[in-house]
């Protein structure tokens, strides 16, 4: 005789919303919108709205599939233990069906309503996040967020492709900016929640290589990130407003990263928390500056 798993009541709709990681989605939607607004050609407002909706739904689908696959890891980490699956408020099959359905819907809608180029990049970004980052890299290598960071870098490319139907140098630089921003951002976080990652057995850099190596890597990744952030101006892709804003914002990022690089673990981990918080503001403001620069031009 076999024992059946206890049946859960149907999940609350708010738990499905939580599966989509709405807070992560904010940055994804914003960078996608900025990629679209920075493009030289505009599209009808309703199609622009649809493209942004598809980017949000695609990101939500990737987040849901990530939580479906990582329910066991989430259960042992304080930061994620209250999510719907580890907290036992939803069965795994519902999360899988929701994630796959949402992914398919977002890609099909993008392809039919906007264009195939944007739909193709959206597909790659979802598959990259789920298969390359979540399934393949996250549990295997401390380089997980370096390579996996590409998944979060796609939205400006998708936004640009939605408006123009093609890819150009500026959105590729925006992709590179988010890609190179991801390691310092996540490693600053990993430094102050290292014990959480260690408990879950996730090979984040501080767990595998130690605190000093992580601090050095934060400094090393900040250099190419700074170059890529400022590059659109000398390359003639943006105006002086973006140039001045990117230099000022990146200088602050560099100063905060330098403090973390030369620092040591302290009880409050203030420099690390400051870098983590500023890195989020940095990305919002630098993308905003790009859009303002376009309007000024």
């Amino acid at each position, binding site marked *: 005789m076999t024992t059946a798993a206890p049946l859960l*009541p*149907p*999940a*609350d*709709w708010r738990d499905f919303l939580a599966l989509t990681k709405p807070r992560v989605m904010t940055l994804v939607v914003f960078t996608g919108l900025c990629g679209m607004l920075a493009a030289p050609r505009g599209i*009808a407002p*309703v*199609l622009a*709205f*649809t493209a942004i*909706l598809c980017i949000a739904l695609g990101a939500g689908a990737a987040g849901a599939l990530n939580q479906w696959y990582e329910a066991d890891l989430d259960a042992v980490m304080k930061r994620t233990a209250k999510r719907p699956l580890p907290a036992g408020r939803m069965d795994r099959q519902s999360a899988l069906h929701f994630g796959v359905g949402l992914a398919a819907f977002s890609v099909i809608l993008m392809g039919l*309503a906007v264009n195939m180029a944007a739909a193709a990049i959206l597909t790659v970004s979802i598959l990259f996040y789920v298969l390359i980052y979540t399934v393949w890299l996250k549990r295997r290598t401390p380089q997980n967020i370096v390579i996996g960071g590409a998944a979060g870098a796609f939205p400006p490319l998708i936004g640009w492709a939605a408006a123009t139907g093609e890819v150009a140098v500026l959105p590729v630089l925006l992709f590179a900016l988010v890609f190179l921003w991801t390691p310092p951002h996540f490693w600053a976080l990993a430094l102050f929640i290292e014990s959480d990652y260690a408990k879950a057995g996730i090979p984040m850099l501080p767990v595998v290589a130690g605190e000093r190596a992580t601090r050095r890597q934060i400094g090393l990744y900040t250099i190419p990130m700074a170059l890529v952030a400022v590059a659109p101006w000398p390359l003639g892709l943006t105006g002086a407003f973006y140039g001045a804003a990117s230099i000022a914002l990146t200088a602050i990022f560099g100063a905060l990263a330098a403090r973390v690089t030369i620092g040591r673990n302290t009880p409050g981990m203030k420099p690390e928390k400051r870098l983590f918080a500023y890195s989020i503001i940095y990305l919002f403001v630098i993308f905003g500056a790009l859009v303002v620069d376009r309007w000024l031009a």
Partner: protein
Amino acid sequence: MGDEQELIQRRQKARAIVTAVLLLAFVVLTFFITIAKIREGMAQ
């Protein structure tokens, strides 16, 4: 048992309402997408 049945019914009702609202929003969006596509086609 009664409480659980009530919880299940409450959640099913809430999910049905959310699904209906989303479907209605999708219908409206599809309408406006169609209008935008027709205008795009006329402009070319």
